[in-house]
């Protein structure tokens, strides 16, 4: 197990390196001269030049990359070209709100989604299945931003029960985490159901039934256990996809998180923040995939030995 962990961790290093080069290069492709933008419309060419030197944009690209990685290794992500704050500070402030939002959404979405999926799978073709699957297909089709606005209009504006946005108390969490989780719950419900249906047709399930096991044991011990393997992967991947959804939900609910920061940094061409954000998101995906692999190895010993 330990050897497997080390092997997977070492394997992630070249991926990170490639991602860092990609992220660095991609930000240089952006249209518009950031020095010019930052100096303002009335700036003289000398002022623009001064800003350029200050940002290091006058140096050759490879040197800029070297400097950037060097600083990165020391935890220095540069300064936001918009607020002049250190990027690490900006991201640090935004990290926890997004983490809590995604965790809250993930927890309820996994519980509800997998329950709906199992119930639909067990009661295949019956009304429980039909209701569950109608809910699920609606869930994946519902635009999160519309759902958010509808919820605000009902629960905040009309009923006055919950705040329209912002961050702080538990009341602030209710609407955003619900909005964010809907699509994930729907995807998991569909996925769990099809995994369950697939397993239900396998020989060992038929054997379990044939030897007279009670249906409860057939479902929980034989079918569900095996159906859950692919569901673990899917759940892990969904966690990554929540970060994408967070961009929209944070915008709707004025949530002070990473998603909102990313949209702002793109709108304002805030290079350093954009770079750091994309790098951070990539790192998170790599870690999530790694965690899924490890979890898989824990569940299925065959993988460890390969």
């Amino acid at each position: 197990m330990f050897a497997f962990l080390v092997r997977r961790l070492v394997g992630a290093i070249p991926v990170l390196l490639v991602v860092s080069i990609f992220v660095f290069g991609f930000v240089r492709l952006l249209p518009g001269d950031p020095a010019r933008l930052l100096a303002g419309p009335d700036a003289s060419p000398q002022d623009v030049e001064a800003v350029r030197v200050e940002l290091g944009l006058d140096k050759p690209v490879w040197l800029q990359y070297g400097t950037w990685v060097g600083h990165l290794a020391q935890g220095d992500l540069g300064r936001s070209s918009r607020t002049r704050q250190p990027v690490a500070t900006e991201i640090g402030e935004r990290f926890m709100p997004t983490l809590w939002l995604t965790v809250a959404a993930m927890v309820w979405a996994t519980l509800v989604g997998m329950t709906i999926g199992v119930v639909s799978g067990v009661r295949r073709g019956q009304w429980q299945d039909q209701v569950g699957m109608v809910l699920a297909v609606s869930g994946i089709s519902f635009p999160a931003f519309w759902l958010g606005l509808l919820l605000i209009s009902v629960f905040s504006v009309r009923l006055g029960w919950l705040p329209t946005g912002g961050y702080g108390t538990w009341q602030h969490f209710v609407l955003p985490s619900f909005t964010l989780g809907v699509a994930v719950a729907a995807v998991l419900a569909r996925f769990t159901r099809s995994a369950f249906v697939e397993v239900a047709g396998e020989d060992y399930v038929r054997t379990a039934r044939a030897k007279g096991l009670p249906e409860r044991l057939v479902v929980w011990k034989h079918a569900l256990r095996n159906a859950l393997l692919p569901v673990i992967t899917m759940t892990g991947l969904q966690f990554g996809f929540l970060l994408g959804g967070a961009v929209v939900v944070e915008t709707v609910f004025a949530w002070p998180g990473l998603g909102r920061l990313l949209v702002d940094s793109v709108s304002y061409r805030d290079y350093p923040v954009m770079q750091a954000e994309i790098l951070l998101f990539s790192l998170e995906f790599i870690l999530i995939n790694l965690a899924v692999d490890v979890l898989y190895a824990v569940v299925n010993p065959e993988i460890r030995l390969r």
Partner: protein
Amino acid sequence: MSASQTTVEAARIDSPLAEFWRRFRRKRVALAAGAVILLIMLVAVAAPLLSPYDPATPDYDNILAPTSVLHWFGTDAYGRDVLSRVIWGARISLAVGIISAAAGGAVGISLGLVSGFFGGWLDNVIMRLCDVLFAFPGLLLAIAVVAVLGPGISNVIWATAVFSVPAFARLVRGDTLALKQTVYVQAARSIGVRPLMLMLRHILPGAMPGVIVNGSLRLGNNILTAASLSFLGLGAQPPSPEWGAMLADGRSYIGVADWLTWFPGLAIFVTVLAFNLMGDGLRDALSQKLQ
């Protein structure tokens, strides 16, 4: 009719596509969804004839008018008719969905065919690239592409096309690997049919059902992503009657003029739902296992 003639006649074998269609015809929900999609397409094409008002002309005497006989969906902050804007918006959303799915599909299908047919290092490189694209959620990838190209609806099309590629590529690669081994492809190869012809005429038709299923689900997904980008201000820009952009405009009037968020949102939901339901029906018709 002579007896010898009937013995020569082989048993009729339906093409996979015809077989597929026969099974799909029985899915009522999916057929209804297909009808809804046709209707939306019709509305998009006939927008100039159907929309009661010009979608862009302000009417300052009718600002934020609620739903009425004159304005079924009410008017917005500039007095523009929301129904007309929703109708014109269908053009944008469908165009974005169709073009991006077609472009992403074309690239993905080509990559999948080449990858599955030739195998080796080429296969490896293509599939690793797809893995990387797959690892990112579509919306973040699209934001990254829009960040490079700049905001705007045409860039949104490219952005959504890019993340449509890997799903098509993987799917077609899998089908190609299987179809490569079939008797008819082996036979065609043995009489000297060139690789390009083999791929296009003998393998691609067999991969089409999967492509159609994925295409339908992709279309819905891409429409949703494009609307999200416009909502974030990274896609279609304000005067445009794009549904996501209309929602972004309407959010300042929640509680004052809810129809501004209701109708464009409903339009997105119904359109995406129709594509998803049709895609589900197509997929069920395709997979014999669930029969």
